[in-house]
């Protein structure tokens, strides 16, 4: 009896917590996303963040794409060869990369690199009163700090994903050659089987992931409390929560889209 009561109370508290955070997250993100359109516009801040999210993540994303496409090909090629379905290796790799592996793995890698860094930087600014300093100078930290970060993530992730997709297929191509396929066999049917929608839907997903990983990083940073320990906690939480949301929402979007 006692345990049951405790369990119900616990669930209730958890539910309230989740509702509280969702509400606060929603309001903050709306302010950041739409606040960006109010003048004065600060394009310099946006470009700077696009550089940090996009250009600086290139290396990681290329490596991830290359080896994912490669290892995926390695895994499927054996089975496909047994059924003499060599011509399907290329299309399968391309479909998997554009629909799933490209968007999701890029998002996870960029979360680790950028989402965590945003959470850490913003929490440090929060606990050292730099956010308060901005506020007192009539410089809204949400619009000055959060807006460019969230927009940069949303705009750059599709570009990074497109690169990962392409590099992944190239990685698969070379692995396939190494396993005795000829180039025509790999490339030949990709065009027939992979449709624009595969690529396009993948890029839409990635834009959403970019929004999630930056906005969650910003949210955790913006509401940090309690010194250096708080900074560490926020950073970890930002990564864990982003991962979970990316994986769950990927499943749901995939179920709807494809």
């Amino acid at each position, binding site marked *: 009896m006692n345990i049951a009561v405790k369990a119900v109370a616990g669930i209730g508290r958890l539910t309230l917590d989740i509702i509280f955070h969702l509400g606060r997250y929603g309001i903050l993100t709306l302010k950041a996303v739409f606040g960006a359109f109010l003048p*004065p516009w600060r394009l310099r801040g946006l470009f700077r963040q696009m550089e940090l999210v996009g250009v600086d993540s290139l290396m990681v994303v290329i490596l991830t794409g290359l080896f994912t496409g490669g290892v995926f090909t390695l895994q499927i090629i054996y089975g496909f060869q047994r059924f003499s379905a060599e011509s399907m290796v290329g299309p399968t790799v391309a479909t998997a990369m554009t629909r799933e592996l490209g968007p999701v793995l890029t998002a996870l890698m960029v979360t680790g690199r950028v989402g965590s860094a945003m959470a850490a*930087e913003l929490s*440090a*600014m929060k606990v*050292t*009163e*730099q956010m*308060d*300093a901005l*506020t*007192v*100078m*009539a*410089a*809204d930290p949400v619009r*000055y700090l959060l807006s460019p970060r969230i927009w940069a993530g949303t705009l750059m992730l599709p570009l990074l994903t497109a690169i990962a997709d392409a590099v992944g297929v190239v990685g698969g191509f070379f692995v396939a050659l190494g396993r005795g396929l000829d180039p025509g066999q790999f490339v030949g049917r990709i065009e027939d089987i992979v449709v624009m929608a595969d690529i396009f839907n993948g890029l839409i997903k990635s834009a959403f992931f970019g929004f999630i990983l930056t906005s969650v990083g910003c949210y955790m940073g913006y509401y940090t409390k309690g010194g250096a320990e708080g900074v560490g906690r926020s950073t970890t939480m930002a990564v864990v929560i982003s991962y979970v949301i990316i994986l769950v929402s990927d499943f749901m979007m995939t179920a709807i889209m494809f």
Partner: protein
Amino acid sequence: MAAPSIKIVDVVKTFDGDKVLDGVSLDILAGKINFIIGRSGEGKSVLMKILTGLYQPDSGSIFYGDKNLTTARTKDWNALRRKMGLLFQDGALFDSMSLGENVCFPLWFHHLASPSEARKRAKTLLGELGLAEAFFSPISSLSTGERKRVALARALIMEPEIVFFDEPTTGLDPILSSQVDELIVHAQKKTGATVIVVSHDMAATLTLADTVTLLHQGVVVFNGTPKQLSQSDEPEIKLFLSAVNLEN
């Protein structure tokens, strides 16, 4: 362009059930140097943050001139903040920027001066604080005293009508302290600003202040001129003064 007076009426602020301010009422004089003193943890910094709209009081009101800011919207606060400067106790410098960028930031952000004009003004101000050479230094390379002076320059660069200094000379050597004191007086004379200084430096309090307020246990226990302060018979004030005198 007259600097406003500030009226604080019965302000209460609680943190986690701990009453830090328990009904503070105080008139800050327009165009004067107002000192606020009190022991560590008495809520002086909290009061500054309430006066700049960073914290919301649990109850009570804040008036700037005859405008009630207690329930004001961010827009009204921001209009006021453009005429405000606040030196944070710990500096609160932007560590992603250089020393010079920190000082120029308010001018640059509000497009109040061209970049070269802003740099010129910042260099002049930093020169008065003995930091002209360090314009491009990263914040992380500065000493505590240097940080304090950079933060001071950032608070003053807009020539604000209302300036809050949270312990402007703590962590400075005696020579720098008196330079900073001079700068504060000089800036006040130049702009006619309303100045609020939180300080533990009793010598500065007694010489620079037009009016002194002593906060104790969440309320104002003294408010008057430095002369009245040093002549007061209130036990709490005597205790405070004697303790401070021993320290020096």
